[in-house]
């Protein structure tokens, strides 16, 4: 009975109810979209980092990360790679030689991280070939070819085919230099890294470093399915018992922090939106209670006790909120699904964003878990917003309420 009366009551003033419901729908849609947009940006950044830089799992010599010295290498890399390739959970693997050094152009110099890569293997891993803007991706037969970022080229004031010198220490801690010819200029989504990372052919760098041919500093593993990460990690540890096997969250703790902070962000954004909506709902319901003072007085007079009055007003508020919430979430979900497929081009701001590692096309994405969080918060908002108007109705004295004009 109360359920029926409360339901009919909210439709007494259709315009007012529609305004409240619409505000809930718009608020939640905006909230869900904002969350999906932000997560889309972060996810893009995370995916880029995982798929274009780190890979899911990396294996190093235990001391390599502490000192970033090429002498700390993993032996028998070829055999390890062969075994890893046989694992059905692994999409691709590659080995890398890494050294820190200095790149010198005729005019200036800059500190760089030198990657000795196997170009064919890396096409499937970091996919640098897709980002080459000028020149080619290790197409010439020359061994001393180098691929550098456009930004670094600009800084060094060099062009394609220019000659540069890389200076670094070999495994005997002796300073060595090598002359390289710029074979290609690349521009990845992360401009800050473009300024630091340079890529050369692995064998040539190995020779300069005097590193054993079967050794490498890094083995990168890309998985078919991230859920198999722990299994593959265990398999890798078994394969390289003396190596240090780390997944991308361990390799880049800041990405883990991004995920953590996004969870917090979800609560904050949703909380702010719902708080604003709460005031709107409370205001409307208070108006509704105050203009029905005489009617509520009559209900009390004829025998509706205060508990039932409280429930009735609570139900009215809950109805308004609980109609708006699912619609808002649905509209948000549909928007996110559509834009998640087609993307939002924000190239207008992409230069600035790219320097932070963000892509210029954002694909909004949101886990179902986040929708559940928003829905649960919405439900609590409904209850919270319902309490005050219902409490206000309880303050009424039937005889005074009936007399009120």
């Amino acid at each position, binding site marked *: 009975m109360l359920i029926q009366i409360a339901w009919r009551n909210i*439709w007494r003033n259709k315009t007012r109810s529609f305004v409240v419901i619409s505000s809930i729908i718009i608020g939640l849609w905006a909230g869900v979209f904002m969350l999906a947009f932000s997560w889309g940006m972060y996810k893009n950044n995370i995916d880029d980092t995982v798929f274009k830089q780190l890979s899911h799992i990396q294996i190093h010599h235990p001391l390599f990360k502490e000192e970033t010295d090429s002498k700390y290498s993993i032996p028998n890399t070829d055999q390890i790679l062969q075994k890893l390739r046989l694992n059905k959970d692994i999409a691709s693997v590659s080995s890398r030689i890494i050294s820190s050094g200095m790149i010198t152009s005729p005019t200036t110099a800059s500190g760089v991280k030198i990657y000795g890569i196997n170009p064919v293997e890396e096409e499937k891993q970091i996919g640098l070939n897709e980002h080459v803007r000028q020149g080619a991706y290790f197409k010439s037969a020359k061994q001393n070819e180098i691929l550098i970022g456009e930004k670094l080229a600009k800084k060094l004031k060099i062009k394609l085919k220019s000659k540069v010198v890389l200076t670094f220490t070999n495994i005997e801690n002796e300073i060595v230099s090598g002359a390289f010819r710029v074979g290609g200029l690349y521009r990845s989504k992360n401009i800050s890294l473009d300024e630091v990372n340079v890529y050369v052919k692995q064998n040539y760098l190995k020779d300069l470093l005097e590193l054993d041919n079967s050794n490498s500093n890094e083995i990168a593993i890309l998985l078919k399915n991230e859920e198999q990460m722990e299994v593959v990690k265990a398999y890798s540890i078994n394969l390289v018992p003396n190596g240090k096997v780390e997944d991308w969250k361990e390799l880049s703790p800041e990405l883990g922090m991004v995920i953590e902070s996004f969870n917090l962000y979800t609560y904050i954004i949703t909380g702010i939106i719902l708080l604003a909506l709460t005031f709107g709902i409370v205001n409307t319901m208070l108006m509704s209670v105050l203009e029905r003072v005489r009617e509520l007085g009559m209900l009390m007079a004829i*025998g509706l006790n205060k508990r039932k009055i409280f429930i009735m007003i609570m139900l009215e508020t809950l109805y308004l909120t609980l109609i708006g919430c699912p619609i808002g979430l649905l509209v948000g979900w549909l928007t996110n699904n559509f834009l998640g497929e087609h993307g939002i081009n924000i190239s207008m701001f992409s230069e600035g964003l790219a320097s932070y590692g963000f892509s210029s096309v954002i694909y909004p994405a949101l886990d179902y878990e986040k929708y559940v969080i928003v829905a649960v918060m919405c439900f609590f908002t409904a209850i919270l917003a319902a309490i005050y108007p219902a409490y206000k109705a309880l303050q009424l004295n*039937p*005889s005074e309420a009936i007399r009120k004009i």
Partner: protein
Amino acid sequence: MMAKTIIDAHNVSKVYNPKTVPVHAVQNVHVHIEEGEFVALVGPSGSGKSTLLNMMGGLDEPTIGSVIIDDVEITSLAENKLIDFRLHNIGFVFQSFNLIPVLTAKENVGFVLQLQNVPKEEREKRVMQLLKEVGLEDKINSKPGELSGGQQQRVAVARALASKPKIILADEPTANLDSKSAGNLLDIMAKLNKEEKITFLFSTHDMRVIKKARRVITLVDGKIDSDVQQIPS
């Protein structure tokens, strides 16, 4: 055989704003209403008739004094018990805002029965019978907004009767009605009073109601000025 006292208002007073500007709405009033009476509480505006009626119906608490209805001292009942007492023993008809706007005539009358947890079948039978009694059997599915003022008051009377109360208190029930509707309503009430021995107590200054009453209590400045029996016309 002497009729039983159904309402006993003993030395009741009501003071509004006792701490700031005290308004003595009702002062030391003693009233006994007997079972089956048809009483009009009359007096000019501000004489305290509505306040006295509200206190006698347990809607308002007297500042001093007690009200006993059917041997129960309602002034000492806790709030929820008082609401429950009203639900089972007293029917109310107000001047306006009598009905729940979102419910049909049938649902409005059945509302009180639902509060009393009367089974659906029995409830529907009684509702139909009551609406027939007040001559609204063809308006059962009309909402208050679709009914005239007189029809609304008749639904209110039907609702007041639904719980088979001992007393019906009516606060200026004819104030907003035209002569025909008022006459019609009073006839229904008089008939119910006579046939079902329900005690009726009205606050009014409508001469049409006063003429129908068998007892007229006049209040002036919160005090009983006169209390006379009469032959209704």
